[in-house]
């Protein structure tokens, strides 16, 4: 406790800035397995955590992970609370107006419907996470959209019968369907949305963007990105 009180003046007066180096703060959601999630020990884990650490190592950056709700993940990037978003975020024209993206580190992935029975009506009530590509797609498809703040709640909505089906990333849904013992199943057609998954970076941060682009390219070239993708998403994943 004494340390905390000691730190207050230190933080406010700015002695803590003595070691300003190349520390990059990486924002992620921590609720979207296998991309990013919190493991049993309470630490961040997942494909993007491994990938992000590797990219930072290649770009010679010290990186620190930051958890942030999905809802406010873009506003907090532009106001400078962290420097990158690496949270399974698809590159879209709309987001590109507010922030910049690195090249993608995953090719466009299909989104899919999951329901509790085969004969569900996909023009009924569909759940999706707020401010996602999937929510945008459902809103335009003519079905009734109900949005939730976390991906987890979109699934619960189907289990509870609140929604007829959930529309989300195939890779997020697959382990859940597998673990449900037949209670949940994929229905309807898969849809490929977006331009792949990339890291979000402030528009003014061109230097950082270049560094990460270079690191991603080097991982694509030596095949380590493909290896990582297969490890986390299985053999069916599209590789570079």
């Amino acid at each position: 406790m004494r340390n905390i009180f000691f730190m207050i003046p230190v933080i406010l007066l700015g002695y803590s800035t003595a070691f300003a180096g190349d520390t990059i703060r990486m924002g992620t959601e921590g609720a979207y397995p296998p991309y990013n999630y919190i493991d049993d020990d309470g630490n961040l884990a997942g494909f993007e955590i491994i990938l992000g650490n590797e990219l930072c190592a290649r770009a010679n950056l010290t990186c620190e992970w930051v958890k942030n709700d999905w809802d406010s993940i873009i506003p907090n990037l532009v106001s400078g609370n962290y420097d990158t978003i690496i949270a399974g975020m698809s590159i879209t024209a709309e987001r590109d107006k507010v922030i910049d993206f690195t090249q993608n580190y995953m090719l466009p992935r299909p989104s899919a419907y999951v329901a509790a029975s085969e004969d569900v009506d996909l023009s009924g009530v569909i759940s999706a996470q707020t401010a996602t590509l999937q929510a945008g797609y459902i809103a335009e498809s003519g079905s009734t959209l109900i949005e939730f703040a976390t991906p987890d709640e979109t699934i619960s909505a189907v289990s509870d019968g609140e929604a007829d089906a959930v529309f989300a990333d195939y890779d997020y849904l697959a382990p859940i369907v597998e673990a449900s013992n037949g209670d949940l199943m994929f229905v309807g057609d898969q849809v490929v949305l977006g331009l792949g998954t990339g890291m979000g970076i402030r528009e003014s941060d061109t230097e950082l963007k270049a560094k990460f682009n270079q690191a991603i390219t080097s991982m694509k070239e030596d095949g380590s990105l493909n290896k990582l993708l297969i490890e986390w998403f299985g053999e069916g994943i599209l590789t570079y």
Partner: protein
Amino acid sequence: MIFDCSSPDQLDRLMWSLCYLSNGKHITFYYSILKVLVLLALAAPISIGLGLFLAMLAKSDISPIKLLGKFIILIVRGIPDIAWFMFFVIALDQGLEWVRHITLCPDWTEPIRQGADFLVCEKAKLPSNSSSETIHEIYGFILAIITFSIIFGAFAGNIFSGALEAVPKDQIETAEAYGLNPRQIFWRISFKQMWIYALPGLSNLWMILIKATPLLFLLGIEDIVYWARELGGAKTPRFTEYPHGDWRLWYFLFLLIFYLTLTKLSEKVLDKLTRKLTYGMGFSGENFLQRQ
């Protein structure tokens, strides 16, 4: 770890529960309970201090100071908590960074706002990028305490000015008759006696403060609501040793019990305090409690 939790799927129910409830994620959950208690422990006295200060401003004989006190109380009380939270924390953070930017980086020529981006020089960042995530969390927590204190301080200020009015006029007149000057009258008569009149309002405010602590969640601070939601969500076997279905109901039930217990304990303490404050005041604490 005290228990052998290496392969949870082999354990019987009791051991499984013990292991589950003592994993790192749950420890973080318990730690977040502490966060709520620390917030209460710090925000309450700061609010009372600020409330007294505002009440004195509002009672001042100098009219600009009086107006300022009344204005602050009015503004903070009139704006919805959530709007105030959203606005104030961002404004305070960016305001501090802006001041530091101007003082620490005078040579910086680029504009601070570029499109949607808010940019200050590396040195002005608060806390700096290189400080650990713990420091960032503490900084966020301090901002939250300041915000809570200002909101509840304004309400307390209003309660205190009412309580000062409620001190019987006869007492003031008697004090005058004894030749006490206004300063002495304030500190020795009004200030000492107003507490009992302020107490019902303050205890109400304390209860509201307890209930308002989940607002921390809105500020991006990982409080008990965040962890209850995260822990309660269904977990698939691939990403955890302890897969389970949707347990949010149980976790939220726990929150319910936690907050109810806190309320009950507070009631007891506040009752005692009332009795103590009314001691020797012409009416007993018992009577005062019944009169309410």
